[in-house]
């Protein structure tokens, strides 16, 4: 998968490096700002801990 992406990135090695960094940054931003906030309430570490009065 990564090799395939690397082959598809244009503009030689400098372009591939810049493209890789961009792809990683975009992926991380999508995860950080959309996926994690949406997934986080579904996970148990932090959101159901105050159930003393059940």
């Amino acid at each position: 998968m990564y090799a395939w992406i690397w082959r598809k990135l244009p503009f030689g090695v400098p372009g591939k490096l810049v493209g890789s960094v961009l792809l990683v940054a975009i992926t991380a931003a999508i995860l950080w700002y959309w996926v994690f906030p949406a997934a986080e309430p579904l996970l148990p570490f932090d959101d159901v801990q105050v159930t003393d009065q059940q």
Partner: protein
Amino acid sequence: MAMNSPDPAAPATSPGDDATQLIPAVRSGVPQLDQTQFIPPVPSAAPRSGTADGREMDETAVIPLVVPASDPAEVTQVERPQRIRRKDDTGFIMFGRVRAYDSEPGAADYRGRHGDIIPLAEASRARKIFHGVGELMITFGLVLLLFAGYEIWGKAAIVEDHQNDLDAQLEQAWADDPRVVNIPPPVDPSASPSPTPTQAAPPPIPPGGSLGRLYLPRLGKSWVVVEGVQVQDIRWAPGHYPDSAQPGEIGNFAVAGHRSPAIFWDLDRMRPGDPVVVETRTTYFVYRVTSLEVVAPTATEVVAPVPGQPGVSPTVAMLTLTTCNPKWDNYQRLIMHAQLVRSQPRSAGRPAEIGG
């Protein structure tokens, strides 16, 4: 792969010999070397330079076919059907059929130490699957690492943002109208709803409405406390158990908060005797910590009016904080109790415990 002009490196070949042109690496100086390789019964044949790259000598044993030694062209064109499995000194395993190929490192057509193997289709398919699964697992691990970072730093920043909003709105509401005791919850911080003050003596605070501030001087932290302990209430702030006492009241002012770095992360560092300050519109209430304990999640008696003794009517004003324990898990609760020691009106300034 069009025929180039005759290779200057191989001028010694006869002009009519097309086949050797396909194999420019066959050095004219050692024309017989290729052929002796394929004659296994001669174990002490000319020493193979190929062994230096890690190939095992006996692999030639699987190629019993003796090619006609007289015609070098034959050597290059015979594709041997035998499958071999070769493991080199690095542990690399190669499956495939062997083709005649033996150029040396540095030669123009050198194809690597396994250049003489045509990979089997099934072997390369299996390798692709392993490769893909491995990449997926690495990717998943990296995503998990990023999520751990988000849980620690990302959420702390978000909670602090919300706390700043709540704080500013509480300050504004208290300043605008001294009778205002709370403001509605900011449902969406970007929408920034204008505060619609609830007036009157002690009005019930709606779930999510801000109640006041809580200070833990030892931790150097303070928060706006909201009403309610539902998930949506306490998402960004500690929440007041609705059935428990109000700040300073006889009974138990109980507050729940997440064990997240922006909220009650370090609550276990509190010690008996530490001050806890609660600020309402009119008053600062100073409590002192009496005890910390770890209990089961069902131990509701800790938020009873007299902590630990449900049903008993209270005589002193207590404060109880609850959060989850251990960190990042929720199978226990960390509880901190404190007792009211004094109070002072807000107009008298901040108490000494919080730098007044």
